[in-house]
Structures are given as C-alpha cells and as structure tokens.
C-alpha cells in the first residue's frame, strides 16, 4: 500500500463481544530473511528467536500456506497480526504459547454511522473500506453504512474528505455495529495530507456527472459582496452556467433553470433566490453537504430533467454548545447549535441571516430610493433525536422572505419548507427513511395609491410523503427502493383592487391541483474486482385533479371552450417509465471508465420568459394541453487520479435529447393570465458536450478547474419560424477555476476565474420608422452573441491569532469581485439617440465592476 497512514488511533464503539488485537503487548523483535515464508517456516523462525510455541488446527492445510513479508524486522505482535490478516486466522497468547484458530467463514455485516468527532455531525458519503477484500461502501445521506463481508480479520479504514482517516485491524466474526467518529483534519499546515483507500472513491464509485462540494472549500472562495453562496460556487463548475450574470439561476448541461431539482433536506425549493436573484437562499452556516448531479440521477429522484441539487442542513453539534456567524457587507449571520440533554442523543441548530441593504439606500442622496425598504432574511432550524440505536427523528425547517417597499408599492416573496424524517433500522442491512415534506413559495404584491390600488397574491404549495429503503443485500449488491406521493396546489395569481377608490375589480387565474407519484427500485451490483453495474427503474405518474378548469385551444392558440372538473376528480393522467443505468469499470487503482444512461421526466415548469427570471414567475403543471417534458441522457467518462488521489481528474462526454420542450410565444403574457397555456409553444431540444475537471486537494492548494465545450439547441413550433435556434444557455467554451492557497497558518488567498463564450442573443438588424419611433427588425432568435465573458475574483482570509483557552475564533475575509473591472455586458439595448433621433446606438449595461467587501466571521 502506497498510502501513508499517519494515524492508527481509532475510536471504535464496539457493541457486543469484541476481540481487539494485541491484548498482550509483546515486544520481541523478529528478524526475517526472506520475502515469503510458509506458515510453518515462519512460526519456526518466531519460535527460535522468541521462544514462543505455537498451535494450530491440524485438519487445515495451513502449514504450507504462504505469508508475504515486506520488511526485515517486525515486532512480534505486528507480525502475528500480519499473519492473521493474510491467512484469516485469529490467535490468542497464553504464557509462551500462541494458539491459532481459523475463522469460521460466514457472511457477517458491519454497519453503523460515520460522524465527525468534534461536532457529532453525520458524514455523508464517508468511505468504509476493507483493504484485504478491496471492498467498501460509503455512508448514505444520514451517515449510515452497512457492508456485508465474509467473516475474518481485516484492516478496516474510514475516511472522509477533510477528516483524518481512521484505520484499525478488526476481527469480525459476527454482525457488528461500528459507529465511528472521524477527527477533523488539523488546521496545522505542513502536515502530510492523509489519504486512505477510500479517497479514490471518485474512481471506484459507480457514479458519474456528480460533484460534491465541501462547504468548507466554498467558504474559502471569493464571493460577491462577501456573501458566500453555494449556488454561485456551483456555477463555477464545468457543465454549469449562470442563467444571467450575478444571478442564482443556473443551467446544467444546457437545460433550463427550472429543470434543476433543488431539495433542502429533501423538501423542494421553488425559488432559490433573494434580491432579484443576486443571492441564494442557502445560508452556508446551516448547510453541511451539497451535491450536484448533472446526470446519472439516481432512480430515487425524479421530477426534473436536468439536474438534482441535494442540499443537507447540519444536524447541530451534539457534543457541545457552539456558535458561528459573520458580519458582512450586506448581511449578518448567526448560528447556534448544541446538544439538548446530556447523552449526545438530541441536538439542535438554529441559524439566521438578515440583510441590511436598505441602510445603504438610506444613505443615498437619491430621494427616490432612500425611503425604500429592501431586505431579506433566512431562518433555518433543525432538531434531531436518537430515540435508540434503531430509531432517529429529524425535524428541519427553512423560512425566508424578501421585502421591497416604497411609498405606495410593496412586494414580498419567500419560501418555506418543513421536513419531518424518521430513520429506522429494520436490521443492520435494511435502512429505512420516512419523510413528510411540506414546501411553499408565495409572493404578494400591492399598491396603495388611489385608483391603482391593488393586491396580487400567488402561491405554490407541496405536501409529500416519501419512503426510502436501502437494503445492503451483500457486499456486491445494494438495493434501494421506495416511493413518493406528492400533492401540488397551484394558486398562480389572484389580483383585486383595494379600497373604494380603486378601479381594479378582480382577476383570478384558475387554481389547480395535481398529484405526483413515483415508485422506484435500483441495485448497485459489483461483478468481480473491476466492474460495477447500476440499474434501476422509476415509475412516475402525474394526475391533474379537480377542482380545475381546462381550456380547449384551436390551432391559433385561441380558447374555444372550457371544461370545469369537480373537486377530487382526476381528469388527466400521465405515466412514465424512467430507466436509470450506469456502469463502472476500473482500469487500475487510479483510473476507471464510467457510463450512464438516464431518462427523466418533468411535470411542472416555470413560466419564465427572461433568461434571469424574477420572483413573480409562476410554476405551472402538465395538463391536457401541456405534455410532460422528457429527457434521455447518455454519458461516458474517464476518471483518473494523481498524486495519491490528491488530484482527481475526469473527462465526460454527454448527449441529451429532450422532448416536449416548452418555450413561449413572442411577447408572451405569462403573469396573471388565465389562458397561460395559449402562450406556450412546444418542441424538442438537444444538447451535447464535453467536460473536463480537475479537483485539487493538495497540501496547501485546493479547489478545481474545468473546461466545458457544449452545445444546446431547440426546435419549437411557432418560434423562429420553426427553425432550430440556440437555447439561451448555449455557451460553447467555458473555462473555470476556483482555487485557494494556504499562505501561512493564518492566511489564505483564493481566486475565481471564469472565461466563456458570450451568451446567445437576438439583435435588431433592421429598422423602420413608424409614428415618430422605430420598429426594430430582429435577427433570427439568438443568432448573435454577447462579447465573451470573463472575470476574476480574489479573496484574502486572515485568521485571528488563537490564544490558548480561548473559545472564540475569528477571521477576516476581504474579497474583490471582478478584480480587473471587466465590463461584461449584462444586456445590450439599442437606443434612439435623444439628440439625434435619426440615430440608433448600441448600449451595454454592466453590473459589478470592482466590488470590494469585508466580512468578519467568528466561531465559538
């Protein structure tokens, strides 16, 4: 083994009978001459040098079995461990007698949780690996793992990125619960980075197109206005593009922003943005884990075409009460977490953030702005409780809101989610999670000025029950199955005048209801040493259910008739079979080839006509007029690690074909429109690309860089005369780098760099005069491009000197967004010159040149 294991200290909570090795420390040194001995030869060497006699089962062929040695000299106890591990024996020393026994061969299961030693947080995706069997597994999203193996004596290692690897030699004769707590990697530098067998998991795992970003890495990167933003970090990954500059909408592999499923503790988030999309709703202090699936979406997940972003909230420190927070340029944060009660069984986390941007507006000399109120806040809370070793419950909630207000108008919008979960172990092989999920997105808009006074509400609400089982059949097969049932309630818009003076009567877009169900089963199967297959199927169903109104449209998209369905009446059903397949073939210890195919379907979409999106955009369901979108994605990739897995590289090729793509007619009216479906146009789209990524996890340098070549095109009846056109997210070349470098113990610097082809855009190419103004004559849809986009951001983090016995840790973060002040056009307008009305000129609007910010972060 070429990995350097620095620490062998392990904290293993052993339940049931255990036999830790080397009960009797014996210090004899045994000198060996050959590289290999037979068992008998070697024991005779030991006998000669130490005087220990030995016994072994005579009915076995043990005496002639070979033991391989690497060194010339061994401490006796280590040598005996080595013999035992190689020949699968156990031994006991009494007086000067070593007695060996063969271990009975049967299948046993080790299972348990992998946690962080310092905080007690579950570690998601931590590896458990058995060296002698070259076999392992990773913990699920609740930190639970289970591995079935032949009984024996093994070197078992546990590892997790950013934590020390724990390794120990364990004799496993019976099913065993091994719950492990991994120590946090020391903040000291100049220490060799510890890697274990599990570190090669990107090579070994049968999962591709998936990127996991440790929140700790994200926190080191430069951020706009100092607001560390998980979504912005995601936009720095190959294959992911921001939908508009500075915005939190993103496009994955050419998909639309509404084709990303964002789950916060399993509850869907329908609008992940604050403040016009410049910030995402995820407060990094409350988040423990973030994983983006750009493809190869597991069978347990469905409902969106392009990607799945799995965000998990922290459980809260179960060891001690602690806090963290920050004071930033535009907002401040505070997180409190700790155990409830004494026995590590219950813990909580409470995290809040509020912006104070309106204070800046107040300072503005612009009268029109300085009396405006603009703010957002987020609240995350979670409690988890271990009832006993087999049952655990979690309650988590998110509540966030944005508010904009001036003299007479007001807008507020926000998401709310609630997740109740129950983990239950039916056995050490069968893990179950039951979730009850609720999610709501709503907005409210009002104006209070006289004849125009109105109020406008919109709401989308989801209620789901979800059941997941993980069945760890044996070391070669892990079966997952389960289902989900969701009730969607759409209240897209209701506007009405307020007060006697208002001339506005009322207008209501019809409410609608839908059920979305799915059942899935999948298996991950190891075949031999090198090949792993993954095959699963998801059956999904969508029902429109009354009370609802369906309009009939003619060929000109005009309403000809309507039908009203009674409450509870299922009036339309769609079903889809969604196969999900994957294969991994290890070429050697450091490289593998992976392939995947996944079909996904999507039953609800966002009526978003702009590329960036706005808070007023509404989701609408599939219906008799709107067929569900479908996507087939094929991908193949080559994965190769370097430098003891400290550098992980991958190249992936993908091809995606999407059906029932939704686009909108020219000058579509998507808000407060009963006949929204008449504004829709349908077609297909196609995307392909190549992504290269290198993730660095070196001693001082960490981060990643990536390159993407991609294309995505649409063909939609009624748009661009039916000709194929570029999707707004078609960006061929895209280079990205996000790196941080530890300068000294206390300081680190980091940089983001991005360079990409300009976004597609429609420009006017002609003009005609009409009644004192110009009619612009536009090019084909998206046939021009904005100038290339590039930008570099820098950040410097300085930690305060740590004093002994001081709990408080502080750090200053200075960041500079768009460090060289590139004026990347956000939009280009063609403007009639006021001084010379015969003239039209092009004018770009750009945002954010040199945005400096300072944030102070603390922990206690």
């Amino acid at each position, binding site marked *: 083994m070429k990995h350097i294991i620095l620490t062998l200290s392990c904290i293993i909570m052993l339940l049931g009978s255990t036999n830790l090795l080397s009960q009797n420390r014996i210090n004899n040194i045994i000198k060996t001459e050959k590289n290999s001995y037979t068992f008998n030869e070697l024991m005779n060497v030991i006998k000669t040098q130490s005087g220990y006699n030995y016994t072994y089962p005579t009915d076995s062929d043990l005496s002639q079995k070979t033991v391989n040695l690497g060194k010339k000299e061994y401490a006796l106890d280590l040598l005996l461990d080595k013999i035992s591990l190689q020949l699968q024996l156990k031994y006991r020393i009494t007086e000067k007698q070593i007695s060996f026994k063969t271990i009975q061969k049967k299948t046993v299961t080790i299972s348990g949780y992998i946690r962080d030693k310092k905080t007690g947080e579950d570690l998601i995706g931590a590896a458990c690996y058995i060296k002698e069997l070259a076999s392992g597994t990773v913990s699920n999203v609740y930190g639970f793992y289970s591995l079935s193996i032949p009984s024996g004596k093994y070197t078992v290692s546990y590892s997790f990125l950013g934590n020390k690897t724990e390794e120990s030699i364990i004799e496993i004769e019976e099913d065993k619960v091994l719950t492990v707590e991994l120590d946090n990697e020391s903040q000291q530098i100049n220490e060799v980075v510890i890697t274990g067998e599990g570190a090669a998991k990107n090579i070994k795992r049968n999962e591709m197109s998936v990127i996991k970003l440790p929140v700790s890495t994200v926190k080191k990167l430069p951020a706009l206005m100092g607001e560390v933003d998980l979504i912005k970090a995601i936009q720095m990954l190959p294959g992911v593009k921001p939908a508009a500059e500075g915005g939190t909408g993103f496009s994955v592999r050419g998909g639309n922003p509404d084709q990303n499923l964002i789950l916060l503790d399993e509850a869907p988030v329908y609008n992940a943005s604050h403040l016009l999309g410049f910030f995402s709703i995820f407060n990094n202090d409350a988040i423990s884990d973030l994983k983006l699936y750009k493809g190869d979406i597991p069978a347990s997940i469905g409902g969106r075409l392009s990607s799945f972003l799995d965000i998990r909230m922290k459980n809260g420190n179960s060891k001690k009460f602690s806090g963290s927070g920050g004071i930033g340029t535009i907002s401040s944060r505070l997180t409190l977490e700790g155990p409830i009660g004494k026995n590590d069984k219950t813990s909580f986390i409470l995290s809040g953030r509020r912006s104070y941007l309106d204070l800046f507006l107040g300072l503005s000399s612009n009268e029109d702005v300085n009396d405006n109120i603009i703010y957002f806040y987020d609240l995350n809370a979670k409690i988890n409780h271990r009832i006993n070793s087999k049952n655990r419950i979690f309650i988590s909630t998110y509540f966030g809101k944005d508010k904009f207000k001036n003299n007479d108008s007001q807008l507020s919008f926000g998401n709310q989610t609630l997740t109740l979960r129950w983990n239950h172990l039916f056995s050490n092989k069968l893990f179950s999670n039951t979730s009850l999920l609720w999610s709501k997105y709503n907005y409210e808009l009002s104006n209070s000025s006289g004849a125009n006074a109105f109020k406008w509400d919109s709401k989308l609400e989801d209620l789901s029950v979800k059941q997941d089982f993980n069945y760890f059949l044996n070391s070669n097969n892990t079966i997952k199955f389960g289902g989900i049932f969701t009730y969607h309630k759409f209240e897209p818009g209701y506007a009405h005048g307020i007060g006697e003076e208002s001339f506005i009567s009322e207008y209501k877009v019809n409410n609608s209801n839908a059920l979305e169900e799915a059942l899935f089963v999948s298996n991950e199967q190891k075949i031999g040493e090198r090949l792993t297959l993954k095959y699963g199927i998801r059956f999904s169903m969508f029902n429109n259910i009354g009370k609802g109104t369906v309009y009939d449209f003619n060929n000109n998209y005009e309403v000809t008739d309507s039908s009203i369905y009674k409450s509870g009446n299922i009036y339309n059903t769609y079903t889809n079979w969604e196969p999900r397949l994957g294969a991994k073939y290890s070429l050697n210890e450091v490289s593998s080839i992976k392939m995947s195919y996944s079909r996904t379907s999507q039953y609800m979409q966002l009526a978003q006509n702009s590329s960036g999106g706005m808070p007023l955009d509404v989701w609408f369901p599939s219906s008799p007029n709107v067929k569900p979108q479908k996507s087939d994605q094929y991908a193949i990739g080559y994965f190769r690690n370097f430098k003891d897995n400290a550098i992980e590289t991958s190249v992936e090729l993908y091809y995606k074909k999407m059906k029932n793509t939704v686009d909108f007619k020219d000058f579509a009216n998507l808000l407060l429109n009963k006949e929204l479906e008449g504004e829709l146009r349908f077609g297909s789209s196609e995307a392909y690309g190549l992504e290269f990524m290198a993730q660095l996890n070196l001693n001082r340098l960490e981060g990643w860089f990536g390159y993407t070549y991609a294309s995505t095109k649409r063909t939609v009846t009624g748009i661009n005369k039916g000709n194929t056109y570029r999707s707004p997210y078609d960006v061929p070349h895209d280079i990205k780098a996000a790196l941080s470098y530890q300068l000294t113990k206390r300081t680190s610097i980091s940089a983001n760099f991005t360079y990409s082809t300009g976004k597609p855009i429609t420009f006017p190419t*002609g003009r005609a005069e*009409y009644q004192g103004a110009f009619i612009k004559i536009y090019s084909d849809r998206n046939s021009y491009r904005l100038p290339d986009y590039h930008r570099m951001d820098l950040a410097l983090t300085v930690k305060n000197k740590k004093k002994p016995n001081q709990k408080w840790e502080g750090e200053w973060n200075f960041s500079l967004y768009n460090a060289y002040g590139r004026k990347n056009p956000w939009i280009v307008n063609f403007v009639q010159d006021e001084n010379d009305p015969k003239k039209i000129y092009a004018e770009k609007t750009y945002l954010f040149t040199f945005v400096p910010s300072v944030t102070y972060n603390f922990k206690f």
Partner: protein
Amino acid sequence: MKRVIYLITSILILSSCTEKMDVKLDSTSTRLCVEAKITNDLKRHFVKLSESSDVFFNKEAIPVTKANIKVSDGISDYLYDETSQGYYESVSKFSGIPGITYYLSISNVDIDQNGEKEIYQAQSVMPFPYDVDSIKMNYDKRHMNDDGDRKAYWLLSLYLQDDIETENYYGFACQINNILVHDTITEVVIAEDTFFNGGDSKGVDVGFFDQEKPDEIIYTNDKITLETYAMTEDYFDFVNEFQTMDQTQSPMFSGPPANIRSNISNDAIGFFAVYSITRNSITVNIEQ
C-alpha cells in the same frame, strides 16, 4: 406592472452602469413600412410609406414614392394622392364608420427592386367609440413615472363605465390647446379591460404631462383634450408590442426580443390602424 418592476430594480440603480458599445450587425433586406390610419374624424386620412433600413442607417427613412393607394369600405373606394414624398392623403375627406371594415391596398411598389411590382393589402374593422363621462386634472409634484423618477406632473383622471359585454381596448393621448402632445406611438397610454371589466374607471390616470418637458408644461386656462381611442384587439397588441420593444431590455424581466406584428400582407412592416376617437376637454384653472 412597470412600477413593480421599477420597485424591484431600484437596487440596480446603485450598481449598474451603461456604456456605448460597438456591435457588428449583418445588413438586412429592404422591406416596405406602412403607417396608415383611418379614424372616425372627418378629414383627409393619410398613408405613409417608407423603406426599412439597417439599424445603424442614421438617416431619415427613404420614402416610397409613386405608389397607388386605395382604401375601400366594401361600397365606396377612397383614392389617395401623394402630397409629399412617401406621404399619401385621401383625395376627399371622409370619416370612418364604426362597425365597417376597411380595406387598404397598396400597389405599384417594387421594394426589393427585382423589377416586379408587389401588392400589399390589409383590412380592419372600426370599433365603436367609447363614452367618457368626465375627465379631471390633478397636479402631483412628486409623481413616479415609468422610468422610476419622481417629478412634477399634471395628471389627467378618467371617469367612464366599461361595457361588461365586450372586450375593450383603450388608447389615450392628450392635446394641450388643440396640439397633440402625445404624438408618438410610444407615448400613447393603452389599457385593456381585463382588470376592470364592466367597472368604473374611478378617475384612473391616463394622461401624464411631464412639467420638465417644454411641450407638456401646463399653464392656467390651457385647454386640455383627452383623445380616447377605441382600438381593435390586433391594433392594441401592435401598440403594446411596440411599446414593449421600445422599453429597455433586462435579463430579468424581458422575454427574448421579437419582431412585432403587422396586419399588412406580403411581409410589410407597420400597421393599418382603424380606430375611433372620443374627445373630452377641460380647462385648467391653477389657483395661485
């Protein structure tokens, strides 16, 4: 809606900047642009013909001359004369009649200069004029306009009763002392009855006089006239699309830019607008 957009973009005022930029654009083929109107006024109605050009043409549009223009209401034909280059007026005065369909025909034009003359046609029905109960003038020294600026404005309030039976499309433009001040199509205020169908307009503001614009300044004893247009749905959509196209684009609120509609055949640009006008006047009395 515009105000709402303004409200949520006020933050951008702090962080966005604009700058002229060079853009290379392909040239386009020349098309016929038609500006034609028939109203219920008794007058010589006009048709204006010009050529489309590249965006950066930077000159007056080239007039299309020597065309033959005819308007018909199915019974009588009205012939047009070219009174100045590209500007055609009906030979005789006539007033459009609500409920009647008018047909426009333009011939003897060879816009693509291929030696073959093209014929362009359009038709539209004239809607019935609306009854306006009354209008009122109010002064607001800090009125928020569409650009989000607060300025001194004179506002014209409208009182009328919408007909619940029909879908109504309104247009509004104002005169000061018989001079139309809202004379470009982008200044016309338009509204459909979706949000107040069958209701009372309750003095909603439909006329806006920017007191910083020289031609819109109002003095005491000025006679203000509101022109209320009864528009067809198609013409309303044309004006709406025109105004949308004319607004500043933003990646957050704007859909992809697109060509606006035209009701003229043969790939021409522009519109044959047929609408009826109701006029109401009021004299402003500014108390000192």
